[in-house]
């Protein structure tokens, strides 16, 4: 009954990453945050409680036992194409399974799981805008995203089995930003990027701050289920590269595939060859459900979103 009993907390996994830090910057002003990550959180705000631990370990459960946790934001999906597949899989899938167990066991009211629009996968016969009920086909061409799909499906199963927990699965489009080190951002930072000669798919990008805002929006009571989250819209790949002032090198696509296979094998390139599908075919989503349910509007314009890949400053 004491007055200084701490407020119910929001647990954030993967908090030490760039997206997690961006999220924290906004969220810690409103909520009590408990961060979970294997990595240290450099520049952590003082009011954020941090536990450097692995979700698979028993220690993680203590956080839930000792604190009143009202909500969980799970963005603990690690994606490192250089790490062994087993370790990858175990960290992502087992970690998520444990976390979902704690959510059910300790009466968490809201669970926000960060998935990605990549779960649908780029393909020549995709509709221009995939809705949330489209099949998750990404792994059929690229096994590297299997973990991501499995985590998405685990969360989906949890959503149906535990209706008392308001579960939101967010599938944002490519997240880009000055410090973001995912494949799309890395690709867009290349001065002379390869493009597939004769292919110019429409891209959807979302600025990292907007992605963080979407996760915070998802915390509000009401929205549940799966949501595609779209940024300021669609733009051809060529227009993005022109905006960034890059000089694209057109490569015939069969050649590009075999060349990248070789370069990746000998660790000269860091892009897994199947990622080429993203600059050849369409994987764009319909975000209207999210717009309708939370009144979503990205704060970054298309131009600012694109430019944010290479510069920290938000232009005029």
């Amino acid at each position, binding site marked *: 009954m004491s007055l200084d009993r701490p407020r119910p907390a929001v647990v954030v996994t993967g908090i030490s990453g760039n997206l997690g830090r961006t999220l924290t910057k906004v969220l810690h002003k409103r909520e009590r945050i408990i961060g979970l990550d294997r990595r240290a959180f450099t520049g952590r705000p003082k009011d954020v409680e941090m536990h450097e631990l692995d979700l698979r370990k028993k220690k993680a459960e203590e956080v839930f036992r000792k604190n009143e946790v009202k909500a969980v934001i799970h963005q603990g999906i690690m994606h490192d194409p250089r790490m062994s597949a087993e370790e990858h899989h175990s960290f992502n899938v087992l970690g998520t399974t444990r976390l979902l167990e704690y959510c059910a066991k300790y009466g968490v009211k809201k669970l926000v799981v960060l998935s990605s629009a990549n779960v649908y996968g780029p393909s020549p016969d995709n*509709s*221009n805008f995939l809705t949330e009920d489209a099949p998750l086909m990404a792994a059929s061409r690229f096994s590297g995203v299997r973990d991501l799909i499995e985590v998405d499906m685990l969360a989906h199963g949890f959503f149906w089995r535990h209706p008392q927990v308001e579960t939101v699965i967010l599938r944002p489009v490519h997240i880009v930003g000055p410090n973001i080190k995912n494949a799309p951002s890395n690709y867009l930072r290349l001065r002379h990027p390869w493009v597939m000669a004769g292919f110019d798919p429409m891209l959807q990008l979302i600025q990292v701050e907007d992605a963080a805002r979407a996760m915070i929006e998802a915390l509000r009571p009401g929205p549940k289920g799966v949501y595609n989250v779209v940024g300021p819209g669609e733009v*051809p790949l060529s227009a993005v590269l022109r905006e960034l002032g890059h000089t694209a090198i057109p490569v015939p696509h069969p050649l590009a595939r075999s060349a990248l296979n070789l370069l990746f094998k000998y660790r000269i390139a860091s892009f897994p060859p199947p990622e080429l599908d993203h600059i050849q075919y369409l994987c764009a989503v319909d975000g209207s459900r999210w717009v309708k349910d939370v009144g979503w509007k990205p704060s970054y314009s298309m131009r600012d979103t694109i430019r944010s890949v290479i510069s920290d400053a938000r232009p005029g």
Partner: protein
Amino acid sequence: MFERLGDAVKNRLRSWGEGMVAPEQRPRLTAVARTQNEYGVDPFGFDLDFMLAAVAPFIWLYRHYFRVQTHGIDRVPPGRVLLIANHSGQLPFDGAMIGVALLTEAAPPRAVRSMVEKWVPTLPFISTFMARSGQIVGTPENCRRLLLADEAIMVFPEGARGISKLWSQRYQLQEFGLGFMRLALETGTPIVPIGVVGAEEQAPALLDVKPLAKLLGFPAFPITPTVLPFPLPVKYHLHFGEPMTFQGLPDDEDAELEKKVKAVKNAVQQLVHQGLQERKGVFF
């Protein structure tokens, strides 16, 4: 450098194309309603600037090569509409000519969007060309979305069966797919039947080398008098019919839908017959 060159070519093409359009239609061309963003494309990747340049050679074909005559183009209603036509000629010039007709002769001009085969996005350059000029992969979701946005959509329900048929089957409509009718019922879209006369003679296919088609992943590999299906300078006639509206459940049994599709097919067949009777010759 390539970009500047590209822009120069684009501007030349565009003024060439606009020069061939009736003066009163010209200012309206650029006013074709679009929802484009700051990069000049709509969410589907349609780029009006690109299209107005890309369409120039087709306007030339329309005016001077196929010398297209339209009959009853004013029957195309404003708002969402499905344009249903017979398909022929080995290469889809029939689709291009209907597109040019709607753009240069309809009032107000309409940018028709057609549904392309699913193998088109796998083709370099062609895939980009198609997307920028407003053509969409033919999935039902895409079609529904465009109809709900009040676009004019062109569908050839015969598909590859129609365009690849042999000379001996000319002007005989092949089996119609049912998909367009489901979408019309679901979205309350009127259907305008179109009879295309002339395209059938542009590239008479004597035989279809099926193994070669399979090898190349094409729907057919026709051998025509010009060997490759290069079109002859036939005269095109486009006959537009009265808009037809249908009532019913989009997920009705196939038998119910077939009846409605039959009515559209008959209308197209009738327009084709009428066109064949009225025309003076294949080339004039």
